[in-house]
């Protein structure tokens, strides 16, 4: 069944199930119960699972959905998964033409039928009550390998058939009975059978638990009350978001053009990202018209499971910021409703089947970053300066002769946030839509033939601003056995953008065998690069941008930054105009600072850029003793 006819982004409209009034107390109770179920499902999933990408990083999502995929609740795991499951469900319902039986277990990952991308496999079980399909308990999780051309990551795949095995609405269990041949088909065709099996078993257990818990609510309160409460909560979340959108003046808000490094094959050809935010009353449209045409690699974005999720995330996070907004507004179908997304067919944000779309994360992150930048004049107190808005998602792998399987380690390298109104940025943390956990170094070293040589803040100072930008990390990982390395990354050419006079940030970089005579610069997106035993990769993540004029930063705060090595004495002078009496006590010379700031103010009219600053002043990095010892160990001293 071809999917070229499938029209993406079709929402089912308002629920048609008859509703009854639910008293405010029961409503409150059920709202809490929905959230608790999702949380519990996620807990089971990450604790039971085998691969570190799920277990340590929690790259997963879990929730309960109605029969047409409307989201009742989702777990507080990484936002990239939140809001994609409705589209998976609509996608597999389309493929199954609605044929769902009690006891079925559906496995799905088709990126042109709702999946976020092919390695984010969904497992879903229907919830029946008195012969009525009330909905689904469903989870998504990033499984290590889905049998594409290369282990773990396929950024430059030829088409969807090359990037992964497609699980298109497969019934792993049919009416409660295991489909044995299908089971073998799934697990015989991945490089990490044991891990995938353990993980997918955990996913199934999470779904079954979700279903049981939901049915317990239905038994106790009745299906009509439970479903009515669910729809009531959707209306609540929708109302809260619309109320905030309506406060924005109608109009079009445009972000500066963003540039992605390349498509993983055609080097040096940057890809354009155009973002317009259109506010009309209490609705908002993210319009990506003008963005790059689709690419012949895996660097396209599934429209439903990834792009829409990014747009929902951006709007909700800016307008209903959980740390600032006084009420907890649950994440459900309601927060999706006020948001429309326009991306012309045939662009990287709405590709045509069978274009590959394995690596989509950085493009979506840039849309989120651009939405924030577009709204910075309208909402200066709710937006940030430019974020790292990328990721270096790495796959380290090799074949384990003894096990007869691949070893495969997936790593999410964190970014940093831009400066914010009234406070400094968050350093070295998963940025925007990413919210995974890192893999402990000791866990990595013990479990894989990899050794982490270095993991800390990169040495360059933060991007200056009245509120400074966040600092990215430097990380070095060494192969102790021969293997291959793949990565989907970005942001190695276009730095995070400063706002209101804050400086632009620093770009990322990847180097194989950094500072060694066989050093090699790597592009952000590479596939299957061979690494010999003793070779290592160095990843350096962006420093995000500053917010506001650094000459307005309190000199005391600059001094504190110097003490903590978040900035340098030199940058204090050149970027902030802060002069110290002497370099030991760091007493501020108030007079000289005043003069220096006046001088800088007079001589400068454009925001600065850390990237430009360091092009002129290469940073000297002292040799890292662990790297030195590692090189010696492998005869590369």
């Amino acid at each position, binding site marked *: 069944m071809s999917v070229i006819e499938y029209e993406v982004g079709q929402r089912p409209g308002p629920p048609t199930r008859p509703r009854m009034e639910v008293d405010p107390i029961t409503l409150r109770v059920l709202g*809490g119960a929905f959230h608790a179920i999702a949380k519990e499902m996620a807990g*089971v999933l990450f604790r039971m699972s085998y691969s570190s990408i799920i277990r340590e990083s929690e790259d997963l999502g879990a929730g309960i959905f109605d029969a047409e995929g409307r989201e009742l609740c989702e777990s507080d795991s990484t936002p990239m998964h939140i809001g994609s499951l409705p589209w998976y469900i609509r996608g597999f319902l389309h493929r199954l033409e609605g044929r769902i039986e009690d006891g079925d277990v559906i496995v799905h990952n088709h990126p042109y039928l709702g999946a976020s991308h092919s390695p984010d496999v969904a497992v879903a079980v229907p919830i029946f009550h008195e012969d009525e399909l009330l909905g689904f308990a469903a989870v998504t999780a990033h499984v290590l390998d889905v049998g594409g051309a290369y282990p773990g990551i396929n950024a430059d795949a030829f088409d969807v058939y090359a990037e992964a095995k497609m699980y298109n609405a497969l019934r792993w269990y049919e009416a409660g009975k295991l489909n044995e041949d299908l089971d073998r088909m799934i697990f015989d065709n991945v490089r990490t059978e044991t891990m995938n099996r353990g993980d997918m078993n955990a996913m199934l257990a999470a779904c079954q638990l979700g279903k049981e818990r939901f049915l317990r609510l239905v038994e106790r309160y009745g299906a009509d009350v439970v479903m009515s409460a669910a729809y009531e909560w959707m209306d609540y979340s929708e109302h809260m978001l619309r109320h905030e959108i309506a406060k924005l003046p109608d109009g079009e808000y445009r972000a500066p053009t963003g540039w992605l490094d390349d498509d993983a094959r055609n080097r040096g050809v940057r890809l354009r990202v155009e973002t317009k935010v259109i506010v009309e009353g209490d609705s908002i449209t993210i319009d990506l018209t003008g963005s790059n045409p689709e690419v012949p690699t895996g660097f396209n974005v599934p429209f439903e499971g990834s792009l829409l999720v990014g747009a929902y995330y951006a709007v909700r996070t800016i307008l209903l910021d959980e740390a600032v907004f006084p009420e907890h507004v649950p994440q459900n179908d309601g927060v999706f409703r006020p948001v429309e997304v326009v991306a012309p067919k045939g662009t990287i944000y709405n590709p045509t089947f069978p274009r590959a779309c394995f690596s989509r994360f950085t493009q979506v992150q840039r849309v989120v970053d651009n939405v*924030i930048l577009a709204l910075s004049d309208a909402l200066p107190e709710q937006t940030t300066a430019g974020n790292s808005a990328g990721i270096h998602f790495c796959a380290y792998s090799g074949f384990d002769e003894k096990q007869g399987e691949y070893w495969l380690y997936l790593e999410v390298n964190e970014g940093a946030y831009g400066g914010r109104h009234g406070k400094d940025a968050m*350093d070295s943390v998963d940025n925007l839509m990413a*919210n995974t956990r*890192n893999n402990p170094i000791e866990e990595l070293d013990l479990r894989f033939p990899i*050794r982490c040589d*270095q993991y800390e803040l990169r040495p360059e100072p933060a991007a200056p601003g009245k509120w400074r930008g966040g600092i990215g990390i430097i990380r070095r990982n060494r192969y102790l056995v021969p293997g291959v390395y793949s990565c989907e990354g970005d942001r190695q050419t276009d730095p995070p953008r400063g706002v209101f006079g804050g400086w632009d940030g620093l770009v990322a970089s990847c180097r194989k065998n950094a500072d060694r005579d066989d050093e090699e610069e790597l592009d952000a997106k590479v596939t299957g690069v061979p690494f010999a035993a003793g070779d290592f990769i160095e990843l350096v993540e962006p420093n995000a941008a500053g917010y506001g004029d650094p000459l307005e930063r309190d000199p005391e705060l600059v001094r504190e930054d110097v003490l903590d090595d978040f900035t340098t004495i030199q940058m204090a002078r050149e970027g902030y105009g802060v002069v110290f009496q002497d370099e030991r006590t760091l007493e501020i010379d108030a007079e000289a600072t005043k003069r220096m700031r006046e001088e800088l103010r007079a001589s400068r009219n454009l925001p600065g850029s850390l990237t430009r600053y360091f092009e002129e002043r290469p940073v000297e990095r002292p040799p890292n003793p662990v790297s030195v010892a590692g090189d010696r160990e492998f005869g590369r001293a």
Partner: protein
Amino acid sequence: MKRLGVDVGGTFTDLIYVDDTSGTVLVHKLPTTPEDPSQGTVEGIRQLTAEAGVSPAELDQVFHGTTIATNLVIEHDGARVGMITTEGYRDILHIARHKKPLNFSNYQDLPWQRYPIVRRRYRLTVPERITRDGEVLVPLDVDAARARVRQLKEAGAEAVAVCFLFSFLNPEHEARVAEIVREEFPEAFLSVSSEVLPQYREYERFSTVCLNAFIGPKVATYVRRLEDELKNLDVRTGLHLMTSASGVATTEAAVERPVNLLMSGPVAGVVGGIWAGKQAGYANVITLDVGGTSADIGLAQAGKLRMKHLLDTKVGPYQAMIPMVDVDTIGAGGGSIAYVDQGGIFRVGPRSAGADPGPAAYDRGGTEATATDAMVVLGWLRPEAFLGGGMVLQPERARAAFEKGPARALGLSVEEAAMGAVQILTHSMVQSIEENSVRKGFDPRDFALVAEGGAGPLFAAQIAVEVGTPTVLVPPYPGVTAALGLLATDMVYEYVATSYQRLSSLDAEQVGRRFAELEAEARRQLEEDGISSERLLIQRVVDARYAGQGYELRVDVGPGAIDEAWIEKLRADFHDIHEREYSRRFEESDIEVPNIRVRGIGLMPPLETAEVEPGDGAPPEEALRYEGSAWFRVGGELRRVDTRYYDRAALKAGDHVPGPAIIHQYDSTTVVPPGLAATIDRYGNILIATGGAAGDEAREAAEAVEV
């Protein structure tokens, strides 16, 4: 034995004295002295021993529970900590697990960056690196280490944490740096990761070890001062403190590893609840300790405490990977504020009016409606009976708060809104009980709910009905249950060692030897405490997981030789525990054992309390304070019903108190809703039957809400 338990909380210092020989039990309560809690403690001991007519010198045991460590963390009031760590990994504490607390927020703070336990300027690195095999890849640069220590001293550090990668496999480098600290900077509080927490996962370990350093100097000062003052008072037994794992720490252990005291207070409450349950004949209990702003919830099956998963063990926003009893704290208490948000949703808490201004009924300037106000509106709290008459409540203030607040916003009557607020708060406690304990495979019908704290007994019956526990147990002194818990427990020391082995290829000789080493250490400590051999018990525990998984479960294992049978038993037990926790088992999978543990136990005499005089089944006349009316939900409707108000002190064993009834005592109030009934057992416990037909009826009444 003459034993004394003292629990220092935020508001009150509670004490209990027990003489196991004569059967004397005395309780005492006095205000906490926040500027120096040892003052209140010592004064309390002086008063209580005087009351008991014994001299402090006669005490055989003084056991102490405290929130001092917790408060240092929550108020961020610890020491200036310097950290020495491996070069190339300076920012493990800054990066943490690179995950944000909130998903949908650009303006949130990362507490470990905004309020770091160790500021970056005091995180210094030295060249060194141990590999995953415990071998030295980069030798320790001793000169650099010495220079760093001097640098920290010069910078005015008060504590030094030494945190190297893989030190749990090879502590050599850390030990060497510790030596240098002792040489160069002996006055610093020293916290070494391979000593404090020899376990893998560097962020969690470093965070724990640095927290240890952060609270170390002040806890050490407090504990030492308290010990000195006890000596001045002529208390001759050593001071013992309750740990987060409900174990015991000596003064020395508390000074070395104060991080183990982080949950000292709440844990004692759970232990006290277990004891109260056992005494009344209930081995399975859910404990509910409700104060002004928060509620602590614990669960014990067969009288055994449950431990938290090691990666869930946080204090405030900081990770502290230490064994902790599974106590869940939620923002629900008497001071929780009831309001309607702009989307029209009725909410209660977690915002609290606290003690100041307090509920509107306190008439101290609070205008927002709270749970306490709701109870006043409903007639459950009598204005003149609060704190034994120590405070007179203003019911019209409570009514006004509801009238202007939630009642108006929702178009409800004041009573309906008040009942709604109580129900919402009840539900959030129900939710927490279900989520954190009952949903892990424990059937609530097998448990009794123990109501503790000033407000626990107000809510308990309704919660029991909702959760499905058939009995509510209100101990004689709900407010001092935690102090009682201190005396109701054995002295338990726990020792841990990393093993990192698989069952299929277990090095039995090595595991046996490590157990023996830990056991010797445990024995030595207990003997030092004067525990005789017949009261001394050694237990073994392992952390285990399926090979390939990342999270461990604790499994009790038997004594004796590590042979096939021993391994088989461990394997079978692990499968069962995994299935109970996660509802799945994987028989074909190998099992890993990352850590082994030994528990050294000094058995304490069973705590026995006096019995209450038996009555004739009906409450005596003098127990009935007055007859009035209160609001309850009956047959689905909110109604004003005739209600009897009793004085608890006058109730006799065997008395049967049908609801609706309110039972008052100095530090608490128990509500017996209509349709339910309370009886007094021979120890003076109030038991409310909430199961069976009565429970069903009460549940239906509660569910058939018509608003």
